[in-house]
């Protein structure tokens, strides 16, 4: 079983202490990526059974431990694990009992505190599972302290919140904060071995919901972002409350007399500054390590760099999707930003250029209402094991299922994507031919006040590289202004069919046609070969049979069978209860599977030989996939009815033999809504052993509604595909650059230049001084070169008649 497609951006990543590795929470595991190549090196697995929520890298204490690489991870399964991530070994596991949503270990920040004797306190934001979830107003979030060394909780609760909040710690570990609705809670944590009651807390108030905060690296300054895009900076927080002792207080002035500009509720701060640039919620705030800049980001996909002294702004625009986290590495020239399109961009720091991107599979996006029905976001390319995902930024992303990384991206529409804008354009349908050589896409422009709507059909042919597609034909409004309901390629032919809700289908062929005027101009492209319709009914689905001989079109409740070449209606198969959503031929057999999606869901198997219903089930079907050679198919069914509002999205995969209405095998899955299924041939290059031993080497892939996928063999109970077969993509660490080279790179090889001049041809002659200086100046070798040869020639001469030469030289 292979799993993949995890979200890289569910939790903030962390850099290793040398800044060369990036630890990314990927589902139940932590993946470690190389910063220099952007490829995955290894994975920490086996520790957690639920989503990993935070990674804390243990900093390097002494130079001797420079190569130590340990980290703490927390997870929703209620455990905290201690890993050696260089060797991917689990060292220790601590049970907490509560799902941990966020963890910080402030004492790790103070160097040397990892020595013996001092306690290792973890501050955890946990979810109180004892309170029933139905109580909306109950305080489900708690902040607790846990002693990791002695494995016991310390003290009571620091605070309770409605929901578990993310914990933020200052760089020196002195302060800890959370944002709780319209307040910030800040605790001052005394240095080593404190008592629980020594922890003091202040609150900072605002009028809007605060979403994130950040502590300044050196000064007592905290920044908070709210959901309207404002950034508030409080200066000198906690001067009274966090004072070391009470004697200090007496010297200060009475706080009520002081003017505190911008401060609400007489909070314990000196002043508060408000900046406003972001039009919507601020997602992250981060002070630079030197404390001169503040980074902020949000939905617009722009990193704003604020100079704290002057309030001047710089921007890093065009990151292409809403931003989530910003992480700085120990190396000041490197940081990374997590985008909500499942990409982590590694930024070269002062300039903020993207040096590498760690790209996961892009998440599904929501289609605008009333366009939802006719969209599929996923198509499988079966020969190479790729999945094509249409994305929000008008692209089709090709993702390697077996290797779990992005292969390429094809931009479908030539338009810049703005994450904050309304959806005005989307890629509705993607189809890839069986051999992967052709791709067709449908993109839809939503009319604005009933103007400017456009449906566009594009045909693409594969280029020289894997998953590189070049645009071959653009057809505007293939069915005038009607929505296209399905798109299918004919196996073995350069032919495709589109069906529309407008009541017609078109068969497109790829061919060359000469232009009338100039016969030498041969233009190739896709053109419409034939148009058909059936009683003017909306055509809801279209599919070719596996051998390409029959075209099946669903006209609402009827299935019509056509000869694709002559465009003749061959037969009709009668009536379902509601319009058919999808059709599929079962392999080479004469059977046809259809399902409907309305209030009366139905999965039906039709026999084309009898032109009759063979068997049917009343299950809510989300996806159907048929193998191409066998009479088997897999069905993804939802456990809830489509109208069910609080559908949890749990589903079942049924594996049917077409002859038998009783499934051969079933698997329960989660997040089935919006999921898809496909049969893939086991990649021979990867699974040589399995390819040799059997005929039925089809693998089934299930991709859930969040584009996480699982590949498994439907015939075998045990997993024969192990991860060991995956080729290691661990990058060869390049030689570490130090000093000069780390800044300016390698010096150009000056020796090579010398060699080059050695090779300059010049003819040594008996009398070199006659020829050596002749010729135009730009072809002459440099004087230093000429001199030596000149004097060498003179030296030779001197053997013969030395006296003359001396006189010559003097001259």
């Amino acid at each position, binding site marked *: 079983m292979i799993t993949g497609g995890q979200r890289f951006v569910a939790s903030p990543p962390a850099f290793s202490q040398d800044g060369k590795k990036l630890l990314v929470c990927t589902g139940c595991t932590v993946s470690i990526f190389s910063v220099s190549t952007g490829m995955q090196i290894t994975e920490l697995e086996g520790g957690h059974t639920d989503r990993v929520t935070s990674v804390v890298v243990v900093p390097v204490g002494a130079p001797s431990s420079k190569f130590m690489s340990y980290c703490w991870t927390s997870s929703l399964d209620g455990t905290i694990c201690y890993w050696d991530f260089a060797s991917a070994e689990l060292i220790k596991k601590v049970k907490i009992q509560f799902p941990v949503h966020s963890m910080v270990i402030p004492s790790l920040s103070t160097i040397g505190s990892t020595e013996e004797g001092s306690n290792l306190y973890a501050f955890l934001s946990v979810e109180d599972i004892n309170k029933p979830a139905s109580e909306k107003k109950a305080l489900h979030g708690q902040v607790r302290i846990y002693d990791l060394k002695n494995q016991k909780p310390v003290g009571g609760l620091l605070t309770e919140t409605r929901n578990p909040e993310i914990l933020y710690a200052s760089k020196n570990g002195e302060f800890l904060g959370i944002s709780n609705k319209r307040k910030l809670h800040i605790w001052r944590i005394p240095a080593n071995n404190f008592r629980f009651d020594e922890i003091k807390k202040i609150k900072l108030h605002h009028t809007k919901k605060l979403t994130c905060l950040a502590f300044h690296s050196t000064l007592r300054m905290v920044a908070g972002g709210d959901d309207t895009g404002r950034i508030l900076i409080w200066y*000198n927080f906690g001067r009274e409350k966090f004072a070391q002792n009470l004697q200090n207080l007496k010297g200060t002035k009475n706080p009520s007399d002081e003017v505190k*500009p911008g401060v609400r509720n007489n909070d314990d701060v000196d002043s508060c500054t*408000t900046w406003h640039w972001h039009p919507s919620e601020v997602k992250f705030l981060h002070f630079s390590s030197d404390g001169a800049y503040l980074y902020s980001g949000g939905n617009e996909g722009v990193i704003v760099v604020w100079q704290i002294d002057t309030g001047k702004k710089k921007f890093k625009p065009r990151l292409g999707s809403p931003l989530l986290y910003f992480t700085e590495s120990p190396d000041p020239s490197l940081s990374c930003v997590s985008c909500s399109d499942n990409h982590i961009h590694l930024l070269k720091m002062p300039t903020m250029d993207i040096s590498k991107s760690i790209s996961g599979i892009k998440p599904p996006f929501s289609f605008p209402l009333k366009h939802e029905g006719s969209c599929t976001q996923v198509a499988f390319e079966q020969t190479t094991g790729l999945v094509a995902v249409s994305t929000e930024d008008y692209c089709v992303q090709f993702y390697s299922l077996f290797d779990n990384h992005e292969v390429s991206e094809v931009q479908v529409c030539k338009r810049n994507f703005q994450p904050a804008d309304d959806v005005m354009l989307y890629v509705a349908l993607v189809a890839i031919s069986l051999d992967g050589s052709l791709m067709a896409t449908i993109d839809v422009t939503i009319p604005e006040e009933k103007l400017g709507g456009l449906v566009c059909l594009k045909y693409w042919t594969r280029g020289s590289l894997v998953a590189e597609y070049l645009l071959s034909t653009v057809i505007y409004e293939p069915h005038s202004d009607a929505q296209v309901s399905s798109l299918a390629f004919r196996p073995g032919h350069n032919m495709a069919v589109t069906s529309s809700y407008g009541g017609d289908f078109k068969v497109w062929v790829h061919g060359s046609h000469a232009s009338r005027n100039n016969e030498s101009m041969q233009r190739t492209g896709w053109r419409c070969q034939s148009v058909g319709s059936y009683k003017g009914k909306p055509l809801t689905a279209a599919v070719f049979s596996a051998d390409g001989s029959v075209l099946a079109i669903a006209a609402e409740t009827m299935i019509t069978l056509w000869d694709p070449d002559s465009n003749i209606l061959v037969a009709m198969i009668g009536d379902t209860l509601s319009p058919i959503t999808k059709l599929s031929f079962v392999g080479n057999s004469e059977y046809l599977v259809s399902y409907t999606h309305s209030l009366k869901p139905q999965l039906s198997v039709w026999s084309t030989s009898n032109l009759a219903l063979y068997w049917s089930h009343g299950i809510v079907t989300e996806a159907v996939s048929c193998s191409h050679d066998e009479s088997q198919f897999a069905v993804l069914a939802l456990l809830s009815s489509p109208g069910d509002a609080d559908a949890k999205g749990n589903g079942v995969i049924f594996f049917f033999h077409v002859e038998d209405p009783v499934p051969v095998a079933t698997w329960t899955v989660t997040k089935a809504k919006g999921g898809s299924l496909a049969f893939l041939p086991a990649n021979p290059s990867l699974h040589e052993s399995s390819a040799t031993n059997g005929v039925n080497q089809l693998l089934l892939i299930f991709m859930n509604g969040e584009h996480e996928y699982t590949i498994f063999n439907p015939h075998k109970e045990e997993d024969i595909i192990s991860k060991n077969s995956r080729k290691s993509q661990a990058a060869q660490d390049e030689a570490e650059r130090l000093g000069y080279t780390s800044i300016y790179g390698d010096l150009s090889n000056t020796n090579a230049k010398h060699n080059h001049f050695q090779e300059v041809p010049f003819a040594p002659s008996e009398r070199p001084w006659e020829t050596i200086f002749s010729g135009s100046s730009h072809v002459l070798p440099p004087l230093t070169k000429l001199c030596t040869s000149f004097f060498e020639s003179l030296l030779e001469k001197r053997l013969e008649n030395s006296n003359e030469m001396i006189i010559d030289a003097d001259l």
Partner: protein
Amino acid sequence: MEKLRIHRSRSVEWKPSAVVALATSADGSRVAAAREDGSLEIWLVSPGSIGWHCQLTMQGDPSSRVSSLLWCRPSPRNAGLGRLLSSSIDGSIYEWDLYSLNKKVVLDSVGVSIWQMALEPSDDSMHTDKTNNEPVSNGHSNHHVQSDSESSFSDNEGNSDSDGEFHAMTTLTASQRLAVACDDGCIRMYHVFDKDELTYNRSFPRVSGRILSLAWSHDARLIFSGSSDGLIRCWSVASFQENYRITVGLGGLGSGHELCIWSLIFLRCGTLVSGDSSGSVQFWDSQHGTLLQAHTYHKGDAKALTASQDDVFSAGSDGQVVLYKLSKLTGEQMVKWIYVGYVRAHTHDVTALAMAKPIRREDLFHDKKTRKIRRQEKPINFSYHKWARSGVPMLISGGDDAKLFAYSAKEFTQFSPHDMCPAPQRPLLKLASTTINCGVPVMLFQSSDYLDVLDVKIDGKLVVTQLLARVKSKGSRKIICSAISGSGMLFAYSNQVKPFLFELKKPKAQKTKWMIEKIQLPNKLPYAHSLLLSADSSCLMLAGHDRKIYIVDIKKSEIVQTFVPQRKLDRMNVVANEPPITQMFTSVDGQWLAAINSFGDIYIFDLEIKRQHWFVSRLNDASVTAGGFPPKNSNTFVVTTASNEIFELDLKAKNLGEWSKHHSAHLPRAFQEFPGEIIGLSFLPFSSSTSAIVYSARAMCLINFAIPADQDMEFQNGSDQPLVNHDCKNSNGAMQKRKFQDHESRTNGNDFDLFVFKDPTLFVSHFSENSILIVEKQWKEVVRNFEAPVHRHIFGT
């Protein structure tokens, strides 16, 4: 009690002009505002009042634009407010005499434009300010040992460099040095004495570029000048030599294009602050001329700066007022000026800032326990969160949108600013129910340089005004005052030269055309600060600038009587030295003439026996905003004061009237918190009812003098509970007002019913027995007349 129909008219022309300069008087209580049309306004908070009140308006010359205003310190011999000087673009300096309401040249044109004046700070260490007992808090780089001991508001923009010294009632030096920034690159130094013209001291060396801004150091040893070529120069006052210069452009950007240093201030801690045309506000170490910090928050030019304690305010042409605060960060020894926040109240450029301290007077009133001013005033919903004590500094800003806003200086970001003048430069209107125009009322409209006579017809629900005649002032001089007779036949105005009287006639031959005939007036008449036509249209009453009141018989065209207002009635040989009369009212029966001077003293004359009858000194120290004689009872005179109090005077008894005796001290709080200052009073013209309408630009209130003030409405001072009740009440009123707009009649059984207007209202008057006319104008439409503000970039556009 009665039903009222409301008729609204919006057809008047109203063009307020921009505020160009502000200056605070030495005691900080008064703010002078110069407008683009050359006029000057004096604003103050009357004792006991909660809002700002325009005490005086003086017309100026529209051709000489004021570039800066400055209020000198009062000298020991000449106590009072000190001289108010204004410099103009034509290079001369004027003095505005607030006592005699005239303007005189104290420095003839130097030939080049004057951009700014700066008065030498007082280095008088003998007079320690009472308020300065608190420790010096802004101790940032105290290399200049501060020998002077100024109040905490020591620093102000060059508009009035001296306004910080509230204590400075006396200075030992006879003259104050005035530095003048000239267009030719020269700083000229003058001596200002108590009287007379300025005397020239000497000039600093001339430099390239124009000098736009000036600031004195606090020891008066250095002058800093900012010029149009992006340089700040530091001059030694003793040697008249340049000490150093600062290139202001950030990161060397100053070269190339012109960078104008619009304003400079010197802080007590020795920091110099500059605001320039790139929108940067920069803080400099004044000893070394090095940059401490730079902030660029303005999207347009940073036009004005002012400071209060550790706070620096800057205003820019983007309409923002930005606050910077000195902050000492723990963990570092350095102090920093941090940006705190901004308030954008103005829709257009902000051109001037001033820091003022509203009231310095001790509370004299026994029954008002705590005299408070309202720092924040929200006109519609009446949610007053915070009450400010007197002496709390306020920031005043004036801009191109003709508005003045007052901000809390201490809690700048917490409270929204208060619109001091909802109807700036309100055109004056008078209504006369005519006999000549078939009983259709005629309205007189006084604009800055013309008079309009309009007839007001009610066409169903609409009010139709039609222009009957327009009289333009000769040489487009500013009209000071005007009057229309009760019959509408006669109207008069006075500009700064002489008064004029006109008669409106309808020739028999033509039906529609109206004729204006000028009526000769006696030659001896001076120009007037106030004009009045008697009820029977027989005589013209004129309050001249020579402080005498003339009664002119119109038919005979001769002066019948001359009154000299006086405080003591028994004195025989009188010299006209009382402050000029700015308002006059006469009773319907023609017996009484009430004259009110600019400070609120009331002089009552008996026209029958032709002598002064009574003198009423200013009521609760507040100036009079409106007054009138009830139509039926000529022996009572009703006045409203700037502290939003209302008094009924019994003239026969020379005492407060019955109603006033009972209720003036116990006016409902809702009335004292009347939104805006009361600008007018209107009685029912015909009926015997004793009720009157009192109005401000924001609201109006019906008061019945017959019914005693409702006990329920009466408030107890000091407790907040009644205030809450009134809040509810008032919001009810606001709701009912909406019905009211649909011309629904409304019965009010209560005294002090408050109606809040949506748009700035210029004039309210009774029309007939049960209908009133409201002349108003939407501020949106007024704003359309202004030039477009500096373009602001809005996100996403």
